[in-house]
């Protein structure tokens, strides 16, 4: 009986744990994915040697494929923690690159 109780308690705990992991992953996929998509699109705009409006349009056309790719990546990784850290560092790096590019572009004008 006691063992049974412990077992149920543990099962509930793992259930809870599993639930939080799912919520975490879904949040990373949707919100983290959205941020990452936008940053990648902005970077594409900066790097494309096209007239400004065309570069923006191209980046936007690609954005949903990027988003899909990111979502699939988030769900394909085994460890949630590494997804989080990889995503955070990529977002940080991209932001730095974009801010630098923007700074230089402003100097150039």
């Amino acid at each position, binding site marked *: 009986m006691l063992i049974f109780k412990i077992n149920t308690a543990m099962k509930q705990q793992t259930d809870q744990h599993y639930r939080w992991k799912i919520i975490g*992953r879904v949040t990373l996929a949707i919100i983290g994915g959205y941020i990452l*998509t*936008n940053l990648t*699109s*902005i970077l594409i*705009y900066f790097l494309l040697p*096209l*007239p*400004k*409006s*065309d*570069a*923006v*349009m*191209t*980046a*936007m*056309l690609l*954005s*949903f494929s990027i*988003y*899909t790719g990111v*979502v*699939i990546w988030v*769900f*394909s*990784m*085994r460890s*949630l923690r590494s997804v989080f850290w990889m995503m955070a560092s990529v977002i940080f790096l991209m932001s730095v690159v*974009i801010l630098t590019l*923007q700074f230089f572009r402003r100097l150039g004008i």
Partner: protein
Amino acid sequence: MKSGFRQSMSWVHTWGGLVVGWILFFIFLTGTLGYFDTEIDRWMKPELSSANASLTQSLRVAEARLQQQAPGAKRWFISPPTNRDNPQLRIFWEMPGEDGKRGIIGNELLDSFTGEPVTARATGGGRALYEMHYALHYLPSTLAYWIVGICSMFMLVAIITGVIIHKKIFKDFFTFRPKKGQRSWLDMHNLLSVIALPFHLMITYSGLIFFVFTYMPLVITSSYGTGADAQEKFFDELFSETEKVQPANLPANLSSLSNMATMAETHWGSNQIRYIDISYPGDANTRVSIGRNLHSPLRASPEFIFNGATGELLNNKAALTSAPRAVRDVLLGLHEGLFADLGLRWLYFFSGLIGTAMIAAGLILWVTKRRPQQLSKSQGPDFGHRLVESLNIGMILGLPLAIAAYFWANRLLDVNFSARSEWEMHILFITLLVVAFYPFTRSRLVKQTFINTIQLSWIELLWILSFAYGFLPLLNTITTERSVFKSITTHDWLFISFDIIFFVTSVIAGLTARKMQKNLQQRVHPSVNSSNIKSISRQELTQ
């Protein structure tokens, strides 16, 4: 996430598809009907005749009417009845606004022979059904665009993960195991997905591109800056708006529109003019742009631009500008299918129906897969399972029924009722709501096992659906001048097609109901053979 890549993707496909499945069903079905929006418009305004005057006559009466309704306007816009999207002569005007605000706008449908505004019953028509698939009718538009956008993004992920988990995409295509419950639904879902995969991908991706400026505004912000001005600048650059002409504020007579139209027609052939756009009519600086009918998914039409005061041709504008813009235009054009002739339009329609059925099959697959385990639970199925079963009925049967109710309302509501077109729509959504609560209400009224409530709800609603569509041709015959017999004798193909589609829908619903009834009775009384099934009363099912 799970033990393997494919298992993880399968999880994403199953749950991602489930949470937005019902809204996707709604978007797909109403969007599919949108491929025949003008035809539905015409069915819903049976008093209108389809005869039209010549282009010259149409332009003459349109100009006279605009002169009378909107002298000194900023813009006149004439859509002659030269194509499917525009079965009726239509005029639109915009008055000059004050302090940067938009001026008063108006539009009318005209009789192309007399120029009198046509009087038909007030109805949302097919257009309202089509608009529902991205504006969701009651919601503020931005909120609706976001909801539709999020659902479309889920759909895109579901399509890609669906392809990934589908190891033997080619072999499975030829696999169908009927009468095997869950297996059959899986095969059906696979078949419907693969058969129109390019359509599903195209329609989902291009649907997202429609509102990309809403969904991904940060790219514009980072390049053009914030605010409406920055956006305006981006659009001007992207769509390379030609310099906007300012009015000279000197009066001048508008040169002959039909001469300009003739010039355009000599280049494009007859019946090729889609619109005539006149800016600052009556001013010395007036410009007349004549656009051509669409013949390819490239959405922009080539234009001739005239000096409206002299009738002189100024510019022959090609439709195309830059490559990224062309990609966007083609995607949007493919989505809308405005260029499609009748054959291609039917293909669009059936592809849309396949997409709708695929979503429905996926939703049903979800519940059939979990039913055995859920039903074996001692306290009955979980709340979540019950909810999904009910919502499946509410949307998969509810929406087709709601659309039938919309058609019934169109024929039965008083023609002089002032809020007529609004109430047509209210009736649609009330029906949807009633059907969504049908299994719940039924379970309160008649105590039965959960699974019997669900299955009997399906059967009863399918019968109602069958009758709702089956009697539409009769209702049309009784309430309008365009009866089935008259349609046949006058070769009125539009009305004949509607009657046929209503009849086919009715038969399909009826056959499905009968089949489900047989299955259910076989399950309850496995020993009984099908011949005396009818004798089993409902009480016996209750056990």
